[in-house]
């Protein structure tokens, strides 16, 4: 029996969660997203200040909600990278104080590996190997996960913008609020409901790195900056001509371009690497069209698809506690009390 508390502060969400033997007891999250909205993106110092204020109340909320006392904890896990230095620092310092005060082991874990591990809370142990597509505001990576507690190999990543970042930038261009992903998702769904599936190909936006030499050189990488420019040009041309911009059609066509590339590359990687399970995680995994298209393409290729419920896709403490719980169960060595933060922590390092 082991009870693990996980802390996540790599970006703008203060997450604290409790996992007992692979079962999620509670996932408490405080977000400063509203404070960043008017800046159109996360302001690191604003996020760090919010983490400090939210830390003790969120720990208390998690414990109270699960009916657990801090003294019952067996281990502490915390995101030690990658992410914003100032934000990570608050979480790591808090986790160390807990570990020190309670005399329990501390595990500094990789944020990306935690995005993968979280799915065990919803769907049980991960098949080994599993292919993981992580798509969020800060990352777009394709990972070969042989053992999430020790061996993760990056196969591909974005060579420019992350998928979520592309959603957020295009949303801004279209005058939709921040964060833009859910708004584009909704606008696209409404367009399809009103005008049929054809609206997804109403505008032919480019699919980066999917053909010829680009595909050879960047087999599993993705790129969204060309797409972003192409959407911006399209919008500007309409505006210059004094025409109304058909926001739902742009949203649907843009979204289709993103999820088409992501699912194509993920399925390609599974087939070429002989992996029969695909896991999608990160905030963009909440995208309804990404889920639907992935399901369709995986079924066609005999690949099992795993996607955690949306609340577990975005940043939260549950993912960290989940990975901590797996590390404890696997008997991995804890981190030192001198643990630091690593804003550029490579995904090959599952823990530090």
């Amino acid at each position, binding site marked *: 029996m082991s009870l693990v508390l996980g802390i996540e502060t790599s970006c703008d969400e203060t997450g604290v969660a409790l996992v007992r033997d692979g079962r999620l007891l509670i996932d408490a999250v405080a977000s400063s997203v509203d404070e960043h909205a008017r800046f159109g993106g996360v302001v690191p110092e604003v996020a*760090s200040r919010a983490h400090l204020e939210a830390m003790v109340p969120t720990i208390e909320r998690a414990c109270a909600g699960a009916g657990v006392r801090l003294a019952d904890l067996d281990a502490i896990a915390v995101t030690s990278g990658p992410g914003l230095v100032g934000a990570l620092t608050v979480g790591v310092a808090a986790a160390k104080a807990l570990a020190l005060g309670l005399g329990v082991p501390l595990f500094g874990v990789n944020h990306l590996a935690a995005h993968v591990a979280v799915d065990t809370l919803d769907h049980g142990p991960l098949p080994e190997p599993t292919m993981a597509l992580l798509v969020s505001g800060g990352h777009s990576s394709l990972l070969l996960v042989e053992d999430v507690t020790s061996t993760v190999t990056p196969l591909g990543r974005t060579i420019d913008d992350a998928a979520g970042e592309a959603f957020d930038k295009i949303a*801004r261009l279209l005058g939709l609020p921040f964060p833009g992903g859910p708004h584009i998702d909704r606008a696209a769904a409404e367009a399809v409901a009103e005008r049929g599936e054809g609206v997804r190909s109403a505008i032919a936006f480019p699919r980066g790195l999917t053909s010829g030499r680009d595909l050879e050189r960047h087999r599993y990488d993705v790129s969204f900056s060309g797409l972003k420019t192409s959407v911006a040009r399209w919008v500007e041309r309409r505006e210059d001509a004094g025409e109304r911009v058909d926001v739902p059609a742009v949203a649907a066509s843009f979204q289709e371009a993103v999820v088409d590339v992501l699912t194509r590359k993920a399925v390609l990687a599974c087939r070429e690497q002989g992996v029969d399970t695909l896991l999608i995680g990160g905030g963009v995994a909440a995208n309804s069209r990404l889920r639907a298209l992935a399901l369709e393409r995986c079924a066609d290729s005999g690949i099992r698809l795993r996607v955690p419920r949306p609340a577990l896709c975005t940043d939260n403490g549950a993912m960290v506690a989940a990975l901590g719980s797996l590390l404890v169960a696997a008997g991995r060595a804890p981190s030192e*009390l001198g643990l630091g933060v690593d804003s550029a922590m490579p995904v090959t390092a599952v823990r530090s």
Partner: protein
Amino acid sequence: MSLLLAVDTSGALVTVAAADGDSLLAEQAVELAARHAEHLAPMIAAVLVEAGRAIDEVSAVAVGVGPGPFTGLRVGVVTARVLGLVLGVPVIGVCSLDALALQVAEWGEGSAGSAAGAGDLAAGREFVVTSDARRREVYWAAYRTGDGEPEPVRGPGVDRPADLASAAARDGLGQKGFGPFFGRGAALYPEVLTAPPEGAPLDVRAGAVARLAGRRVARVGGSERARGQEPVPLYLRRPDAVAPGARKRVS
């Protein structure tokens, strides 16, 4: 028996002390430009070992709340708050410049008449302590000496050294004995603020944080952790954040 654990990460030193009443059991300090988060927890463990005490004997936690560079400052504050929560003990925030002022006053008492500059610390005199605020500015606060704790009379603030010097002169504080300037900030800008006297303390130490906090606990009595009374960092500056401007064209 009581055990007060004090930490300060507001400046160039990460410093930890353990005190029992008026007696300082152990104090450590390392000079660090960054990476406070790595060193604080191991130093707390080491100080407790040196003091011969266990973490669960801690009866109160004190923390220097700055002003100071934000990321380092938060390490101390969040550590203190969470330790207070875990151990179920009160957490007392102390302005780090108050602690440095206490060190300066104690130094003045100890070396009165001998060290150059210490004479300026006779009772009733005013002096300014400073620390490095980076970006060519200093954090500062002004105090009046008395018996025991220096009394804060102005600040804390953050200003360019030249502005601090001219404000002090303009307010006529200099004539009443405002100054000399003490602390790291004065040492960094001696041509503007006058160099601190030889041997005077430059950086806050956790021992001084412990002494101030210990007296404040004794004064207020009680040991209930009062909600909403958690130590709050003295940032003094707003976050750097710019609202995005108009969209840039791509064509």
